[in-house]
């Protein structure tokens, strides 16, 4: 992508780990649950990083860390090279804003649209009442809502309109980075395409950087410039969108891609070859976490956790790419 400046990352994650303590039963001793495990990611300005993975893989925890809603147990998050702390949420909120999945529950039903969209300005003490109203009118126009909706309430709007309100609220502080957590999953097909087009337009207009979390790989392929695939807290593969969708490396990525149901009649439902259920994150499998479901698992996968292996456009964590091909690197007997 030509509009991507990789020299100056706008967002950087270095070895970010988040461990929760989970109680097992009433008297059970708490056990650690590593929701995000040593994640290192770099986002250039104007990039759209698509984050994919099954439920429970840590996508949303990662989003919370970026929004300052959770502090990482280890590692650091840098915005424009500056380390952010969860304690300085107000400063962080000016630069990173979220758009959530459910426009029905993410808007306060008792506030008017003007109140909802102008709240960030109020919180950050920006301008006076008149200039705030003007700013709301401008941003509503940008997201494609008429000024007359300002005095209406969320219950009077359709799902697509509410999601436009949520986008307006996220953009009114002119953030650099927007975290989109399944922003179109709750919407109908015809509305989803309008919102996806809007997000694409806003990105080129304001030079926004997106972290786009979605379970819909067709949407990710359409919108993202880079893709990170997450499994049990780890980024198992990261690549440019073309690299990931045209020549995926990790067997898990391949299984995810296989499970995409394109609207092609007569092709039947694909066999993902992912036999087992998603593993319990409190007791992840040893070695490579993916080995019990992996169609290409080898002996060493059960014992040795793979390390990130650099690829021309990202990295992959899989013993298939250790360099010696499918034979074991060293004897494990």
């Amino acid at each position, binding site marked *: 992508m030509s509009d991507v400046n990789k020299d100056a990352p706008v967002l950087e994650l270095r070895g970010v780990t988040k461990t929760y303590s989970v109680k097992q039963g009433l008297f059970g001793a708490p056990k650690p649950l590593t929701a995000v495990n040593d994640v290192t990611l770099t986002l250039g300005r104007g990039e759209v990083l698509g984050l994919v993975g099954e439920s429970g893989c840590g996508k949303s925890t990662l989003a919370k860390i970026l929004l300052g809603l959770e502090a990482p147990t280890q590692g650091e998050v840098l915005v424009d090279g500056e380390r952010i702390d969860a304690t300085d949420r107000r400063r962080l909120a000016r630069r990173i804003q979220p758009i959530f999945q459910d426009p029905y529950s993410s808007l306060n039903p008792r506030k008017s649209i003007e109140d909802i969209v102008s709240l960030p300005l109020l919180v950050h003490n920006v301008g006076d009442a008149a200039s705030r109203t003007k700013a709301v009118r401008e941003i509503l126009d940008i997201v494609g809502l008429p000024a007359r909706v300002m005095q209406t309430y969320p219950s009077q709007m359709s799902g697509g309109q509410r999601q436009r309100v949520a986008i307006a609220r996220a953009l009114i502080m002119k953030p650099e980075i927007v975290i989109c957590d399944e922003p179109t999953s709750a919407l109908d097909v015809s509305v989803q395409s309008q919102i996806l087009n809007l997000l694409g337009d806003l990105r080129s207009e304001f030079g926004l950087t997106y972290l786009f979390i979605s379970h819909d790989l067709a949407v990710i*392929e359409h919108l993202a410039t880079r893709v990170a695939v997450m499994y049990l807290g780890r980024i198992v593969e990261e690549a440019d969108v073309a690299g990931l969708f045209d020549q995926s490396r990790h067997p898990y990525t391949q299984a995810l891609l296989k*499970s995409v*149901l394109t609207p092609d009649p007569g092709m039947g439902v694909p066999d993902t070859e*992912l036999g087992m259920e998603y593993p319990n994150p409190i007791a992840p499998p040893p070695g490579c976490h993916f080995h019990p479901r992996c169609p290409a698992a080898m002996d060493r996968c059960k014992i040795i956790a793979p390390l990130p292996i650099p690829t021309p456009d990202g990295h992959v964590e899989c013993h298939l790419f250790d360099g010696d091909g499918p034979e074991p690197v060293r004897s494990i007997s």
Partner: protein
Amino acid sequence: MGDTLLTVRGLTINIPVGGGTLHAVRGIDFDVDRGETLCIVGESGSGKSLTSLALMGLLGGRIDRRATEMQFDGIDLTRANARTMRALRGDRMSMIFQEPMTSLNPAYTIGDQLTEALLLHRDVGREAARARAVELLEKVGITAAASRLGQYPHQLSGGLRQRVMIAMALMCEPELIIADEPTTALDVTIQAQILRLLVDLGREMNMAMILITHDLGVVARVADKVAVMYAGELVETGSASEVFNAPMHPYTRGLLRCIPQPGKTERGARLGTIPGIVPSLVGGVTGCPFRTRCDQVVDACRQAIPRRNPGSGNHEFRCVHETGHRMAEESPA
């Protein structure tokens, strides 16, 4: 095939609301043969879920359901009393709902819920019923099936719960299964597994299925027959290949343009949209319900809309235009 199991003609559902009557479903016709899968696809509010509840006799008492004909294997469902419906439900026709968490009873074990329908409808003992439950749990790919019978729904993951729902629907080997968005709440990988399972079991047991979904990818991969529903009407029906490879109705064509199609839609290009919103179905509804959003609209769209057969098989659509496209000499309304 060719052996009709379910015939529906002129199904109409009216709901009294404050200020009038909501004409939610208006005179729809369809047939399902034994062993055949019909997918009803439409956006929220199109009436697809109401249609399925009407077939099962599960609409509330306030709701007015009428049909010129509704036959299930020779049984007239329009005249069937509560007793006849109870005898059919769970035995010869059964239903799989979208939310496995809310449609399983949290206070009863999996085993109790699985065996309930069999004990009610068939003359079998508890032991035989439990043996059948274990057999079906194994069939839907649940490991350690016998030990699951004593577990409660909250002890299972979403994918497992949905498998339990499927096993439950299959207990009496129904001739017809109605599945309302059975995979919408699941991960893509689990979705593919569950759909494969439904298709395989349907084939094995020669079971007919009505699958209700908004996901065009699911429809294309699973359906023998497709019915596209918009604002309470079936606007296009036909085989999966007819509807997907040669969509005729402007709404069907619009929907297919809205979704990013891997390998076909250019990455990052603008997606097609359907502007506007679904019309209100309260009060009199005349003419084509899609005309307010249609790019092919002409004055004649306000009048009765003819059914057209584009020339192949059972493919049918409702549009004033013979080809679904406005002719050059017609002026837009």
